[in-house]
C-alpha cells in the first residue's frame, strides 16, 4: 500500500487548519480548501483518483465509527432534548422533509439527472451520514460530500443574517433552523453568536441526520 494519499491529505489539511485558526472565515474552510488543493495536485501530477485512494481510503473508513460516536453528544444533551421535545421533533420533521423535497424538486424541475437528484437529496445532513445515505439510495457519495460542504458554507456565511431578514428572534428557532439546514458548518457559525442557539443547532444536526437517514431511503422511492 502506498502512503502518499494519506500523507498528502494530512499535510494539506494541517496547513489549512492552521490558516483557518488564524483567519476564521467561511472562505478559509479547511475541508473545502483541502479538497480543491488535492484535486489540483492530482490533476497537475497526472495521478489517478484510484491511486490517491489506495491509502486515503483508511481515513474514509473511519467515518463509520465517527458516526457511531455521534451518540455521545446526543446522550449528553438529553436534558435539552427533553425540555424542547415538541419544538425539536416538529422542527426536524417538517424542516428535514423540506430540505430533501425542495432540493430534489428544484433540481428535477431544472433537468438534473436521476443520479444527481439522489446525490443532492441528503445535502442538508452532516457529511458522514449524507455519504452513507447517498451510497444506499444510488447517489454518488463524492458528489454528495461536496454538495454537503457547499450547503454548510452557505449556512456558515449567511444563516444568522438571513434569520434576521426573516424576523426570527427566538433562540431555539434560530438554532434549530441553522442545524437542520446547514449541519456542522452552520452550527460552527451560530455558536459564536449565541451559545444556546449553537447547542440547539448541534443537536438538530445530529437528530436530523438520523431522521433523514431513516426517512430518505423510503421517501426516494415514492417521489
Amino acid at each position, binding site marked *: 500500500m502506498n502512503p502518499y494519499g494519506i500523507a498528502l491529505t494530512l499535510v494539506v489539511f494541517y496547513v489549512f487548519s492552521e490558516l483557518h485558526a488564524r483567519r476564521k472565515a467561511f472562505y478559509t474552510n479547511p475541508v473545502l480548501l483541502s479538497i480543491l488543493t488535492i484535486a489540483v495536485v492530482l490533476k497537475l501530477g497526472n495521478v489517478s*483518483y484510484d491511486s490517491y485512494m489506495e491509502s486515503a481510503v483508511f481515513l474514509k473508513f473511519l467515518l463509520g465509527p465517527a458516526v457511531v460516536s455521534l451518540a455521545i453528544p446526543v446522550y449528553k444533551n438529553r436534558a435539552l432534548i427533553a425540555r424542547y421535545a415538541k419544538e425539536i421533533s416538529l422542527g426536524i420533521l417538517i424542516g428535514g422533509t423540506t430540505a430533501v423535497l425542495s432540493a430534489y424538486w428544484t*433540481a428535477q424541475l431544472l433537468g*438534473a439527472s436521476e443520479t444527481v437528484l439522489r446525490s443532492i437529496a441528503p445535502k442538508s445532513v452532516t457529511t458522514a451520514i449524507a455519504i452513507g445515505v447517498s451510497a444506499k439510495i444510488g447517489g454518488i457519495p463524492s458528489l454528495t460530500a461536496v454538495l454537503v460542504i457547499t450547503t454548510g458554507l452557505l449556512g456558515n456565511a449567511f444563516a444568522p443574517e438571513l434569520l434576521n431578514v426573516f424576523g426570527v428572534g427566538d433562540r431555539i428557532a*434560530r438554532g434549530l433552523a441553522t442545524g437542520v439546514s446547514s449541519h456542522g458548518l452552520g452550527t460552527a457559525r451560530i455558536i459564536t453568536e449565541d451559545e444556546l442557539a449553537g447547542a440547539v443547532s448541534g443537536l438538530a444536526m445530529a437528530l436530523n441526520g438520523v431522521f433523514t437517514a431513516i426517512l430518505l431511503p423510503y421517501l426516494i422511492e415514492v417521489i
Partner: protein
Amino acid sequence: MKPYRGLAIIFGFYALGEMVSSALHLPVPGSVLGMLFLLSALLSGAVKLEWVENEAELFVKNMSVLFIPPGVGIVTYLGLIKAQLVPISVALVLSFVVTLFVTAKTVEVVRR
C-alpha cells in the same frame, strides 16, 4: 489499556449496525444504526459514558479530515457537474433558504 475499551465499544457497535443493516436489508446505513444502538445502550445503562467518552470525542472532534478523501472523488465527476451546474447550484441555494425559513417559522409557531 483503557482506550481499547472505548474503541472496542465504538467499533463493536459499528460492526453490529452493519450486520443488522445487511442481514435485514435495511436502507439505513449501518453506522447510523450503530449510533442508535450505542445511544440505547447509554440510555439503558448497559454502557457507561466514561467508558467511551474520550475515544468518541476524539472521533467527533476530528471528523473534518475524514471528509476530504470522498470529497476529492469529485475529480471523477467534473464533467457531470459542469453539464448540470445550473440545476445543482439553484437547488442548493434555494433549498437552503427555504429550509432555514420553514424550520424557523415552524418552531416559532409551536412556541407561541
